[in-house]
């Protein structure tokens, strides 16, 4: 027998630059920071720590000095477990994979209460140094990295191709940043909250043409904990909760580029994973009330929203500029502020997507609440959306 999975509690650290330089006398350490988030998430769920039986961590960045972080935290928080204690890793998909593993323990009856949690500290490591690692994660070390590709250079090439094929423009793409900052201005946990204009976005220094500073993700630190439970526990809690309605996964068997030329900007993995998730949930894209997508750059939000059927192919950038994907529009996307403004502590970023959907689907999103939101979709990816993991979530109040 399989069990339905629910998110009953959640807490996150506001995304910011929390990490201190290596030579600072006083440090901000990952385990102290994460422990507070875990305690807050369990208070939100209204459960006792003795009920937790699985811990699935997003693996921290290599800069975290405390290794085997999961087992360290099991000790730090005194959490004996009968389900599992593990760390998972998978580029930007890391936190969504942790969510999956925790959900699977519940589905299989190995746990009734599982935490999906993690912390990503990296902001005190200079970008030029950090990229020495990340360039090896987003390309072939011998046949791509020697040319100087960076993780977001692939997205920039998506943008160039999109503008070319669909007669779009940098201005249309940049409207995503303006929209997301407006959303972030209403989100207390967002990294950047001061509204910006289109002209300000266009005036920023170039990072990877045609994208400038405000169209790519900032660097930041974050931590999150989701309390995932057997839905029977959520029901008796009397609290509003979120039910996992469907999931889909697809890896196209390619890394950054497909050596057999394909339509790179169709994001076939997001298409296939999305279809699978909608099918399992018994819904269509038209039923979705809001989306919280893994989209490091503006162009990726556009492409993922098209691939998931939320907006028609080739029209995502224009429709964003017209307000269709804004709060108050037909299909609000990235009400949290998205990766550009809510922030992007990469290994835990998908946790923040689940957190935003939980806030929205349980009616707790305050000024940025999508009225009547019942169904939300979230995605995570790795590479240049070579793989996608999509979840459809439903609010139960």
């Amino acid at each position, binding site marked *: 027998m399989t069990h339905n999975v629910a998110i009953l509690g959640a807490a996150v650290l506001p995304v910011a630059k929390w990490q201190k330089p290596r030579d600072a006398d006083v440090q901000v350490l990952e385990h102290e920071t994460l422990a507070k988030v875990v305690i807050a998430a369990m208070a939100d769920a209204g459960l006792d720590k003795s009920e937790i039986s699985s811990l699935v961590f997003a693996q921290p960045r290599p800069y975290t000095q405390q290794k085997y972080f999961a087992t360290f935290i099991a000790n730090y928080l005194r959490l004996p477990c009968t389900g599992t204690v593990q760390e998972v890793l998978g580029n930007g998909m890391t936190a969504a994979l942790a969510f999956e593993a925790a959900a699977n323990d519940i589905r299989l009856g190995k746990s009734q209460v599982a935490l999906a949690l993690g912390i990503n500290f990296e902001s005190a490591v200079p*970008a*030029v*140094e950090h*990229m*020495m690692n990340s*360039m090896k994660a987003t*390309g*072939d*070390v*011998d*046949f*791509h*990295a*020697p*040319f*100087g*590709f*960076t993780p977001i*250079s692939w997205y*920039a*090439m*998506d*943008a*160039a*191709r999109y503008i*070319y094929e669909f007669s779009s423009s940098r201005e249309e793409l940049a409207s995503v940043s303006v929209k997301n900052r407006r959303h972030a201005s209403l989100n207390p946990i967002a990294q950047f909250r001061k509204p910006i204009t289109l002209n300000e976005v266009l005036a920023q*220094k*170039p*990072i*990877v*043409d*045609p994208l400038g500073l405000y169209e790519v993700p900032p660097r930041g630190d974050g931590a999150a904990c989701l309390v995932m439970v057997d839905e029977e526990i959520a029901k008796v809690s009397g609290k509003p909760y979120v039910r996992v309605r469907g999931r889909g996964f697809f890896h196209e068997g390619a890394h*950054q*580029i*497909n*050596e*057999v*030329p*394909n339509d*790179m900007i169709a994001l076939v993995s997001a298409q296939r994973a999305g279809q699978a998730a909608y099918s399992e949930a018994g819904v269509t894209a038209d039923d979705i009330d809001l989306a919280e997508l893994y989209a490091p750059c503006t162009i990726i939000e556009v492409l993922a929203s098209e691939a998931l059927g939320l907006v028609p192919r080739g029209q995502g950038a224009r429709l964003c500029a017209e307000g269709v994907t804004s709060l108050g529009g037909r299909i609000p996307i990235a009400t949290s502020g998205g990766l550009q403004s809510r922030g992007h502590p990469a290994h835990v970023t998908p946790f923040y997507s689940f957190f935003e959907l939980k806030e929205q689907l349980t009616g707790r999103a305050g000024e940025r609440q999508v009225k009547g939101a019942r169904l939300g979709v979230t995605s995570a990816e790795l590479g240049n959306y070579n793989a996608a993991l999509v979840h459809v979530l439903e609010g139960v109040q």
Partner: protein
Amino acid sequence: MLASQVIDRIRAFPPRMTEFTKQFWWGLASGDFQTTRCDGCERLTFPPKPFCPHCWSEGVRWVPLSGRGKLYSQTVVHAAPMVFQEETPYRVGIVDLDEGLRIATRVLSETEPRLDTAVEIVVLQYRDGPLFAARPL
């Protein structure tokens, strides 16, 4: 035989060479652009591999590539990893070779090339070894 261009510095992040891939890199140094083709299903692959990724046959042979293709996309990297700091900004791109293979490489062009423009592969002769790049025709 590819055109070649001398670059008076060492490669910022040199590729590793194996007993197998040295055929590619040594060939490149003398102007040959080549990859492997499956003896069974006859499909090409890039980068070259000691097996066929499509049918997993281990019977493969080296074949020359024309070094001609079309520019699928491109960008200029302004914010680069540490080892590329001296070279920024630099242009990179994705090329669809005439043989039906998609590769990623440097792009040599002072101005922004139009996408789908025809390009040729050239050898970049660094002091410590070769790399390759695409150049609009």
